[in-house]
């Protein structure tokens, strides 16, 4: 299937600044394609135009020039939103609704009714681990819980594409990890994911493909491996290797015309240290607790 | 900018379309005596800028009630000039409320006039009587204007009849207004009787009074009240009605 899940074609967005002659160019001639089944990361510093791009894809903001499509349907058409779920940047929901009511409400907007709606809500509450918090008002949810209910809300009408604006921003590493796991789970189920982030580290492990925005221009784009891999270098990680063995490898390498550039101990990431240190005591309480 | 223009144009076009409907509706309401108040400059000076604006913006009845309550307080303090002024405003604001005309006239012709004739500050009787007469006239004026605004309601005719009967002792006019009131569809049954009683006291109208009283008498047991019987007997005597045509003598 060749039809892209998302196509952004030559989009320019200019925001007028009220009461001034000046205007802000948020996006400049942006073209972007997301293939079905991929996790696509839109990266860039704050103010680079990520949110604007996503809003144009969802038809929330009309582009000044160009157009966007979802599975071949123009974003201006309401019907294009059938196949997409959206998690806005730091989403807020109606504080007076419980988690379950929030999902029911959005499910109805997505066209679900009756038993189908009920089952779907159950399923999603279980998926995002909020079954025990279902009867609590969102006013009392933690940031991570809100992000998860937001994700569930985006999935309620079983879209083939989800668009997530900064899904891990402001969430602690454990919460971010859970959200990453959820995103990978979506990919397994064949759902295309388009996400944005200004924290590269948080998403680089899960993205298949990334685009880097700077000042509204797509400066880099490609598969993650291609972007990060250095063509002519390979990393070996050995366990229990003696200094003699390492010497032999080095000699062998130079015999064959290769060269060992660097020898170092791999370091675990700080994030992993944090997670291991905090995991055990939090394990029983972290779910459903702010 | 373009859109603002388009929106303004559509509002104006809708305005053109709705104008005849609004005009016709307003007229229909007016024709039904849903008369809107004539907001003249005088009223604005009387009730003040704030009250005037409020009265214009749909709070007319509330402004009128406020003034009415003030009038009530002024009455308790026997400040008659203030009572008069306030009732003029109240009736201007709410010309369709019978009660306000009735109250205004009653305060003038009954309360203020009594106070005037008993005014200890005025030693000269002639002047006291003159003042009393003026208050009668003010009461009469309220009722006449009230009737002009509400010609289909019997209450103010009745009040005017009472004013002529009790204050001016003018039976002829009293009979006239009781009669006018009695002719209206909403009239209470006693107005016809009142009109006939008054007529029976007007010299020269004995025959007509007798006929009316007799007709009432003939209309059933309900009408045969002691006063009616007494007046009817008086007329029989005055007119020398033959004995066999007279009503049976049931008076003690």
């Amino acid at each position: 299937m060749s039809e892209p899940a998302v196509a952004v074609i030559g989009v320019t967005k200019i925001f007028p600044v009220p009461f001034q002659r000046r205007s802000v160019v948020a996006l400049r001639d942006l073209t972007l394609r997301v293939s079905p089944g991929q996790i696509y990361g839109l990266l860039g510093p704050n103010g680079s135009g990520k949110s604007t791009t996503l809003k144009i894809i969802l038809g929330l903001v009309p582009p000044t020039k160009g157009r966007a499509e979802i599975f071949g349907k123009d974003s201006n058409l309401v019907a294009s939103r059938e196949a997409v779920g959206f998690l806005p940047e730091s989403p807020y929901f109606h504080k007076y609704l419980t988690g379950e009511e929030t999902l029911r409400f959005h499910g109805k907007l997505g066209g679900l009714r009756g038993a189908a709606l009920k089952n779907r809500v159950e399923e999603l509450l279980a998926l995002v681990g909020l079954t025990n918090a279902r009867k609590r008002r969102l006013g009392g949810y933690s940031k991570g819980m809100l992000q998860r209910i937001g994700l569930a809300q985006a999935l309620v009408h079983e879209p083939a594409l989800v668009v997530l604006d900064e899904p891990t921003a402001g969430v602690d590493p454990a919460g971010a990890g859970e959200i990453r796991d959820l995103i990978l789970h979506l990919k397994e189920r064949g759902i295309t994911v388009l996400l944005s982030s200004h924290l590269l580290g948080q998403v680089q492990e899960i993205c298949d493909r990334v685009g880097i925005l700077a000042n509204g221009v797509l400066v880099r784009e490609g598969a993650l491996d291609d972007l990060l891999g250095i063509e002519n270098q390979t990393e070996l990680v050995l366990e229990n290797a003696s200094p003699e063995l390492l010497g032999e490898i080095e000699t062998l390498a130079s015999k064959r015309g290769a060269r060992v550039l660097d020898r170092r101990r791999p370091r675990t990431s700080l994030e992993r240290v944090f997670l291991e240190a905090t995991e055990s005591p939090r394990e029983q309480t972290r779910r459903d607790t702010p | 900018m373009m859109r603002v223009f388009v929106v303004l144009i559509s509002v104006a076009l809708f305005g053109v379309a709705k104008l005849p409907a609004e005009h016709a509706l307003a007229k229909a309401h007016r024709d039904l005596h849903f008369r809107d108040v004539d907001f003249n400059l005088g009223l604005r000076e009387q009730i003040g800028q704030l009250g005037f604006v409020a009265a214009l913006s749909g709070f007319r009845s509330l402004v009128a009630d406020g003034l009415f309550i003030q009038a009530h307080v002024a009455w308790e303090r026997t400040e008659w000039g203030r009572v008069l002024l306030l009732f003029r405003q109240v009736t201007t604001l709410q010309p369709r409320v019978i009660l306000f005309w009735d109250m205004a006239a009653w305060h003038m012709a009954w309360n203020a006039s009594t106070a005037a004739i008993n005014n200890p500050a005025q030693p000269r009787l002639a002047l006291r009587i003159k003042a009393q007469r003026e208050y009668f006239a003010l009461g009469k004026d309220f009722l006449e204007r009230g009737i002009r605004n509400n010609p289909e309601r019997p209450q103010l005719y009745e009040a005017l009849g009472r004013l002529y009967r009790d204050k001016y002792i003018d039976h002829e006019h009293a009979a006239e207004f009781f009669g006018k009131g009695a002719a209206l569809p909403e009239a209470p049954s006693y107005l016809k009787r009142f009109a006939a009683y008054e007529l029976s006291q007007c010299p020269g109208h004995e025959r007509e009074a007798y006929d009316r009283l007799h007709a009432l008498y003939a209309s059933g047991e309900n009408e045969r009240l002691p006063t009616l019987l007494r007046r009817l007997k008086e007329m029989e005597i005055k007119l020398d009605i033959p004995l066999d045509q007279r009503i049976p003598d049931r008076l003690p």
Partner: protein
Amino acid sequence: MIRPRHRAFSLGRIVAITGNTLTELTRLKVFYVLLLFALVLIGTSIFMAQLTFQQEFQVVKDIALGAMSIFTSLLAVVTTARLLPQEIEDRTIYTILAKPVPRVEYLLGKLLGVLLLLALSIIAMGALFFIVLYLREQTVLYETTRQMSTAPPEQMADALRAVRASAFSAGLLPGIAIIYVKACLLASLTLFVSTFATTTVFTTVVMVFVYFIGHLQGIAREYWLQNNSAGWITKSLLALVALLFPDLQLFNRTDDIIAGNAIPLALFLKTATLGLFYTGFYLLLAWSLFFRKEL
């Protein structure tokens, strides 16, 4: 996955948004307004003890219906004015409009939520008003019966009829219905203003002006249509008011109804229809601006 084709218009979605809006509004404690109404009603009833029953009923009706008119108008403007800004500020509008929900359905759902709230409020106020009126009527009837126990039955009947006539009249119901229609019109107009306003305060201020000018529109219109001698500046000013503003005075029929003039059904229906036309038109305008609004 098999998915039913997208429906361009869905009552279910509108009902969902309406329900959501109503829930939101009821949790805003707007019903304190009803409490205030009850206090006003009870307050006047206490004061009324010094007046005769006709005066009392007149004033109670004036004040109750006047308060109903003010409170529903106020409720309509204040609740509608913050509807869109609040949703945009809370960013809840993004998740809603990112679903396959046409914007016109969103606006309609929001407006219906407000109209439902207004209906509930006016029903509650009306019920309270009728209960107070009924209780006072019964008291006065009882007192009259006692005071006139020696009078002839015909006079007694007359007096009781007078009491009943000055308390209840069926004409009050269409009067209250028209108050509601006026509130609907104001809510819809507020929604329209809020689609281009930048702040809630701006919307509210605009609506206060509209409210006052709307009540003068009738005078301006009649003057413009009849008077040919006015200068062209005056005439264009009057025409502008007559064309751009609704005649709100048409929806103030309670004064006359309290005075005892029943409003004929046909006239009532025409007035209500005009109000609903206005409501629909302003919704359409709101949609035309909201259709491609940047969020």
